Structures are given as C-alpha cells and as structure tokens.
C-alpha cells in the first residue's frame, strides 16, 4: 500500500489490550516471542493484570529455515517461569505473516508440556499465510508488499513503532 502510513503501534497496543482484557483470566500465561513479541508482551502483561510472570520464547532452534539461512545471530534463552501443563496460554508476536514463527513456537511450547488452550495475539496481521494459523486477538489487518518486511522497533523511551524494510533474501 504505497503512500499509506504505517500502522501506529501504540494505538494498536491500546486496542489489543481492550480486545484481550475480557478474554483472559489471572492464571492465563502470556508468552512473548523474541524480539518484537516480547516488547509487545511486556506492555500487555501489566495492563492485563495477570498473576503469572511473563514468559519469553526464542524459537531459533525450532525454525524451519535453519537449513537455508543458518542460526540467528542473537539467540536468547527461552524463559517460561510457570507450568505449561493444563494452562491457558496466549502467544504474543508483533507481526503475523507466514505463520512459520508461530508453528515453531507451538512446537517449542509443547516440549514444555500440554497446555489447555493456546491463543495468539498480534499487533498486525499482514496476511500471506503459508500455514493454517490465525490470530484470536489482532490489532489490524494490513496489506504489505511481499518483498517488504514490517518490523517493530522500540525507542529509548520504550515507545513502539513500525518501520518498513527490504525482506532478507
């Protein structure tokens, strides 16, 4: 959508919180996917007043593009400070696109246990799915040129903003 402004991440965050608030309970486990998803989850977590600590997932060891692209440079340790077994889980990512990151996250999640339910929250859904995956909570649906990558950034003041970049080949 050339000429159109990029979605406002801060506005979408507020909308996402309102969408999620009635749908989560105090025992719901929130899991941010590195790196953008963790930033979003860090903002959602206090706003939703969850009793469980915030969890983070780095899916680098579960990605299906490892053969083609190698290991990501800055792999973080996944930190899940609560039991997955039997819990209501919401995965959080910044942009939902092909669905491959979410597939990797689900695989990793199930290595920790069998959750009661897993839902997905994302600031932006840009379409282009290559797997049967959908977000239950989503800020906005946008059309982005397939050759571009929509990336979340976090400023020194903690504010989130989207930028458009060339997709890595």
């Amino acid at each position: 959508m050339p000429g159109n402004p990029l979605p406002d991440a801060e506005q979408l965050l507020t909308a996402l919180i309102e969408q999620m608030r009635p749908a989560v309970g105090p025992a719901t486990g929130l899991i941010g996917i590195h790196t953008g998803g963790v930033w979003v989850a860090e903002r959602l977590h206090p706003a939703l007043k969850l009793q469980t600590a915030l969890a983070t997932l780095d899916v680098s060891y579960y990605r299906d593009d490892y053969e083609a692209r190698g290991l990501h440079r800055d792999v973080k340790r996944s930190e899940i400070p609560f039991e997955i077994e039997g819990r209501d889980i919401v995965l959080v990512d910044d942009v939902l696109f092909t669905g491959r990151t979410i597939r990797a996250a689900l695989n990793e999640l199930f290595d920790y246990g069998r959750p009661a339910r897993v839902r997905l929250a994302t600031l932006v859904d840009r379409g282009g799915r290559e797997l049967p995956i959908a977000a239950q909570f989503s800020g906005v649906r946008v059309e982005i040129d397939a050759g571009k990558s929509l990336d979340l950034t976090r400023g020194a003041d903690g504010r989130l903003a989207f930028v458009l970049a060339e997709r890595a080949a």
Partner: protein
Amino acid sequence: MWLNPSNPQLNKKGELHHLLTLEGLPAEILWQILDTAKSFVGTKVKKVPLLRGKSVFNVFFEPSTRTRTTFEIAAKRLSADVINLNVTVSSQSKGESLLDTVDNLSAMHADMFVVRHGESGAPHFIARHVAPDIHVINAGDGRHSHPTQGLLDMYTIRHYKKDFSSLRVAIVGDVLHSRVARSQIHAFATLGCPEIRVIAPKTLLPAQVEQLGVHVFHDMRQGLKDVDVVTMLRLQNERMQGALLPSAQEFYKYYGLTEDKLAAAKPDAIVLHPGPMNRGVEIDSSVADGKQSVILPQVTFGIAIRMAVMSIMAGNK
C-alpha cells in the same frame, strides 16, 4: 576453492565452517559462540530439534572420555545422530590410512566430524579433504589446539567475571605440551584480556613463548600475585619425552596449586582445570574442591559450548 583462502575455517561469507583452532578466529565469531552457548545453559527443555537427521561422527584417534562424552551429549541434545569411533592408528602409513578413514566415513553420509588426534594438524588435514558440505571440529590435536576447551574456559570466565577487559590471568604448569594453553592464549588475546601470564619451569615452556604476547614467570607466588583467573594445566606424563622434570613431587612443591600459593591471587580469583586432574601433582585437593574452584561448572558449560559450535556451523553453507 570455496573456503576462505586466508582462513580455512571460514566460508566465503566469513562464517564458521570448520572449528580447527582459535588462532586467527575473529572476535565476532568467538562472541557469537559464547552468546549462543548462553541460550543453552539452564534451560528446562534439554533437547531441541535443530540437527534432526544430521549425523555427527566422533572420530577419536586418541583416547578421551570427557571430551568425547560431552560432544556426544551436545550432539544428542541437538537431536543429531551420533556415531562414536575409536580409531587406533598404526604408526606407519599414517597419512594414507587417515585419508582412507575419512573417505570411508564420508561415504557413510556424515554431516560433521569431531576429530581428536595425537598429531598436531590432523584435523586441518581432514578438513582440507572432506566434501564441501561436511564440517570438522577439532577436539584436540597433539600439542597444537583444543578450541572447544578454550571456548568453554572463556565461557566459564565470562560467567564469573563478566568482562575480559580488566582481567589478569595466569596459566600454570606444562605449557610446552598443552594445546589447552595455546587455545586459551589465543582466545584471551582476541577477547581483549590485557594481561596473560604463564607460570612454569623453563623446561615446560615452548621456545619463544613470549612471542605469543604473554608474561613469563618461573615463581608461583610472583606469577599469581593479584591475578583474577588461574588455569592449572595437567602434567602430561604421557607426552613427556626424556627427563623434563626431576619428579612429580618436585613439581608439586614448586608449581602445584595449594591454598597457600593461591593466597597470592586476588581473594575472588577463580581456579580452572581442563581435567582430568592429577591431584597432588599440579593441584591440591583442598583447592580442587575448594570454593574458588570452577572445575565442575567448566564441564557443564562445555556441553553448551559444543552445542553452540555445532548449531552455528551446521547452519552455515
């Protein structure tokens, strides 16, 4: 040739393809390995699917229990299939038989070789002859290099000391025969450690060791004064040719690490040893089991380091 001509460990993009020595390996790659290893330490899930379907061959021409086992655990935690081969080499026709061995293993569709060999340079030789999609990791060659040991030592030191830029470190004992000492010295220099000391009798130091950028001491208390990190080397009886030492007792008296000698170092200095230890020869039990010893954490971190090296290499084309 598709490998980087200036450094045969790297591919044309400058990424790690083989791990043969820490000498000449860019700081960026050392940091990448150390950072990646951190993601494997203390995780609840022990096994990740990254190397599923890949075959890692542990090819050991020289006996080793700990190193081989930690490589095996590392590969299995990455879901690779592991094949252990203990190969004994006949003293004659080494070059030919080594190549034959490698050709045969390659024909079994290996993706990665982990090689331990008594001769310096053997893993380099193998790396030059394998197919371009096979990765080689040096698990110790002669007196030359033991890069994953050097890396796990760096990981351990970083874990306890956070930063290399103000560290004073000492490497003590049989430097002459030690591939661990060489690997450490190269890594310390690359990571910006300002003061590297070696402490040993003249007979156990390589000629012109100062050219590696180290300060040489022959007296333990002088050498250990105010250091942050002490690495004790194993006295390698099996590599000794001729009488380099009067006796193990004599060595212990002057160079064995006791609580008394360790008192010269900083009070929070840590003590490393690559294992296996000769208690009562290069290190006293009270130090080996004492509160400054990080010898067992070294073993644990060694698995994470080997997982990191394999994950990074196997993804580089």
